[in-house]
């Protein structure tokens, strides 16, 4: 598993083969061998392996759905169906088997059956984006274009992420610089900044001359709200190379986060000067303007950011917030809806829509938007306050 986890896949396959010979009764090694063989395109061998795994571990559902997927890859829908049925029977609460059955229906052109299976699955496990995508596919084929559009947009970021403990355990054996860097990034994304900083500090000891890594560590300090430590790392980098964009952005963000708007403005301006076409730089400079109360300048930069990166919904959300603050509720809603056209599950935009409806006394529409926000992003930190604010006002208005 150490070899597999670190990209030495041929050697990993050889070792799994040896392990299988040493202990025929242990299904996990043969399972890993099967997975590697399938990735090599050796589907016949992989399917023979998985048959043996199933014979030894008949209750391990992931072996069944993998078998189903590989059979489907070969175009063998009938056998795939049986495999997915077994997976669904063994793990009824797991979406894998049910989704696999829907895939079989779709491959056979049984679109009504596919839609029914997916609707049932989504009722039981809401928020499964891959299932939503498949449902959108089924709806499209059934001519239900409006339903399809919503499902496809929601599902466009989805791919199967089905539970497979015998595969998941491989990840713990990742070693080396790239693995540690990836882990540090993940920790940062999970806002575990101290752990991420500790890991990056370790990495810098391994590569003391790695400037990019140093900038990354500085950025992590800035994200952690430790702007002094960030500056201690990043200012020398910028002094040596004033064109260092990332370091400049990190410091601008750090100062903004620390409430030091003058320094934030200085660094954000420098970043924007370095890359005038950068959407991120425009967003950051716009954010600083906004915090400084310069809403007109902020609006111009958010517009520029939206033009530079049409995928990004956030400039629209912030524009909506600015317009809402100016009591321009219809304009604000248009901006929130523009954001939702790019990401229909964006909680901040849905809350914005709810707020604009509430502000104009359309309480029913506000409540619908709030409920969508609750479904789309239940952990959004602005949601509890928004619910309290809007629902209280709605009750008062209805009295």
């Amino acid at each position, binding site marked *: 598993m150490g070899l597999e986890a*670190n*990209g*030495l*896949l*041929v050697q990993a*396959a050889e070792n799994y083969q040896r392990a299988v010979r040493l202990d025929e009764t242990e299904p996990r090694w043969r399972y890993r061998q099967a997975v*590697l063989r399938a*990735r*090599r*395109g*050796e*589907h016949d061998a992989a399917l023979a392996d998985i048959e043996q795994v199933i014979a030894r571990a008949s209750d391990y559902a992931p072996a069944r759905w993998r078998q189903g997927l590989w059979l*489907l890859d*070969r*175009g063998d829908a009938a056998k795939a169906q049986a495999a997915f049925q077994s997976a669904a029977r063994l793990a009824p609460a797991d979406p894998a088997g049910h989704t696999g059955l829907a*895939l079989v229906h779709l*491959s056979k052109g049984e679109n009504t059956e596919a839609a029914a299976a997916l609707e049932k699955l989504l009722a039981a496990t809401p928020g499964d984006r*891959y299932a939503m*995508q*498949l449902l959108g*596919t089924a709806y*499209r*084929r059934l001519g239900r*274009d409006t339903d*399809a*559009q919503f499902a*496809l947009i929601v*599902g*466009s970021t*989805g*791919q199967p992420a089905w539970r497979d403990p015998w595969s998941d355990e491989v990840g713990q054996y990742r070693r*080396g*610089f*790239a693995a540690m*860097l*990836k882990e540090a*990034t993940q920790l*940062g*994304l999970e*806002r575990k900044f101290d752990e991420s900083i500790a890991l990056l500090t370790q990495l810098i000891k391994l590569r003391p001359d*790695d400037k*990019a890594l140093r900038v*990354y560590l500085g*950025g*992590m300090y*800035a*994200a952690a709200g430790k702007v002094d430590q960030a500056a201690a790392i990043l200012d020398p980098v910028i002094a040596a190379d004033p064109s260092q*964009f*990332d370091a400049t*952005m*990190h410091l601008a*963000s750090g100062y903004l*986060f620390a409430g030091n708007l003058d320094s934030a403005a200085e660094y954000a301006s420098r970043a924007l000067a370095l890359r005038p076409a950068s959407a*991120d730089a425009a967003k*950051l400079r716009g*954010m600083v303007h906004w915090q400084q109360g310069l809403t007109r300048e902020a609006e111009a930069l958010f517009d520029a950011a939206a033009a530079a*990166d*049409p995928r990004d919904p*956030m400039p629209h959300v912030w524009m909506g917030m600015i317009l809402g603050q100016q009591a321009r509720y219809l304009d604000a809603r248009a901006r929130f809806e523009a954001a939702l056209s790019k990401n229909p599950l964006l909680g901040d935009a849905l809350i914005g829509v709810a707020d604009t409806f509430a502000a104009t006394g359309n309480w029913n529409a506000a409540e619908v938007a709030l409920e969508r926000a609750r479904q789309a992003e239940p952990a959004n*930190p602005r949601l509890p306050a928004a619910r309290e604010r809007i629902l209280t006002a709605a009750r008062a208005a209805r009295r």
Partner: protein
Amino acid sequence: MRKHFAVLLLSAAACGAPPGNAPAPATPAATGGPAWFENVAAASGISFEHRSGHDKRYLLPEIMGGGAALFDMDGDGFLDIFFVQSGMFGSPGTPAGHRLYRNRGDGTFEDVSNPSGIADVAGYGMGIATGDYDNDGDVDLYVTALGANVLLQNDGRGHFTDVTRSAGVAGSGWSTSATFADIDADGRLDLFVTRYLDWRLEVERECYSLTGIIDYCSPRNYDAPASALLFRNNGNGSFTDISRSSGIAGAVGNGLGVIADDVNGDGRVDVFVANDATPNHLWMNAGNGRFAESALMSGVAIDQDGAPKAGMGVHAADVDEDGDNDLIVVNLDTESDSFFRNSGKFFVDDTANVGLRIASRRFTRFGVAFTDFDNDGRVDLYEANGRVGLQAETLAADPYAEPNLLFRGVAGGRFEEVTPRGGTSQPLIATSRAAAFGDVDNDGGVDIVVANRDAAPYLLRNVAPKRGHWLLLRVLERSGRDAIGATLSIIAGGRTIRRDVRTGYSYLAANDPRVHVGLGEVTKVESITVRWADGSSERFGPFEVDRTVDIRRK
């Protein structure tokens, strides 16, 4: 805001392993039937060697080139070859080193780069598009690059003049594949240019393979996708950039492959863009110079695997002979090809049912085409392969090198891999990128030119055994220009076969504009109906087989 703050910091800095992490395939298959191709590049006098410019740092553009074109530069009826050189970074104004080889018609080629004016063209080259933009009856060239692109006007005798500035088509950024297409059916070829991402030397990062070795980054590491460019031909030698007004600039992606095709049969040419690690784009032509992006609703943004794949090359052909063109997009290793069957209103991912789910995912595929190489009446499939990231197991001294793939079209619209792998007696292994398709020796068998990164190219002469009958059609507008955008309905042997006149498909490539059709045992073509790009139709025929025929608009 706090949340955005963290994401902003992290997205700007994270560098992970590139995605190319499949187990290396088993030793390429060397057994099987007779060869379909032999590499005659060196024997034909082609001495070109691609140079990526790689030195110490791993700069993303180095791993993406180079390009190639098959076109008849001097109207002698033989396809000549243009190789796009990448060149060196940081030396603007220095000639890239593109090479142009004139086909002598006897199986050999002559390097005419210097007298043709090609040798002077500067820039870090990527791909090429061909088309007679000025309707003077000869083929002009558009060379894409990292930086300014170049339009080369042909004088008809094989000499080219750089008219980029007066034409207004230099563009900017990192252009990749491009295609000429008459998007407004006014009889003049317009120009669609895909762009990869917003890359400059100063934004380059350090990335590592899973085994911890420094390597090329994934486009995901930059998160800087770009919009495509669309230039409308004004008819006076100049073009107008209508990227914004047409709507094309309204969506971004890591564009690599492009094909123009009327996917919904409304008479207007649409454009499909294969994007790398971002959803593909399908630009539906709404008329009046406007396009609407509808890949998601059309079923081609992503395939059934549920996530954007690494779209590289693309081709379209009527594989199931239902009158509309199906699409193939080739992707990274571990990702299968995406075969999108056109159902009229939308596309259906039918990759598994045509037999391409398993064999295709072993390698990273770039150049691609559906072509009937053995003239049995069914299109086959060729894919030119090479990695973009290091793997623990290598197949040649070049760690990115891989064998190419050849699939034979069989009954039921399915494909089966041909061995020896790639269709040559011994598998050829290189980091292949562009593949250009055309009948180089006019013998009725489609040949292939493959550009290989940091290596010599292949010229794969078609030697497929027991080739069937064939017809090669040169379809011309009144001006003598190849009728790019015309659609042919060929009635032969009880079948109606659709073919299209196009040069822009595959990856960084321009292809033979002549329409090739394999006929198997059929010895007569009853009729050919041409629907011209402006929607009008004409009927031609009957035709004897095994010959090249000119069809000129009346």
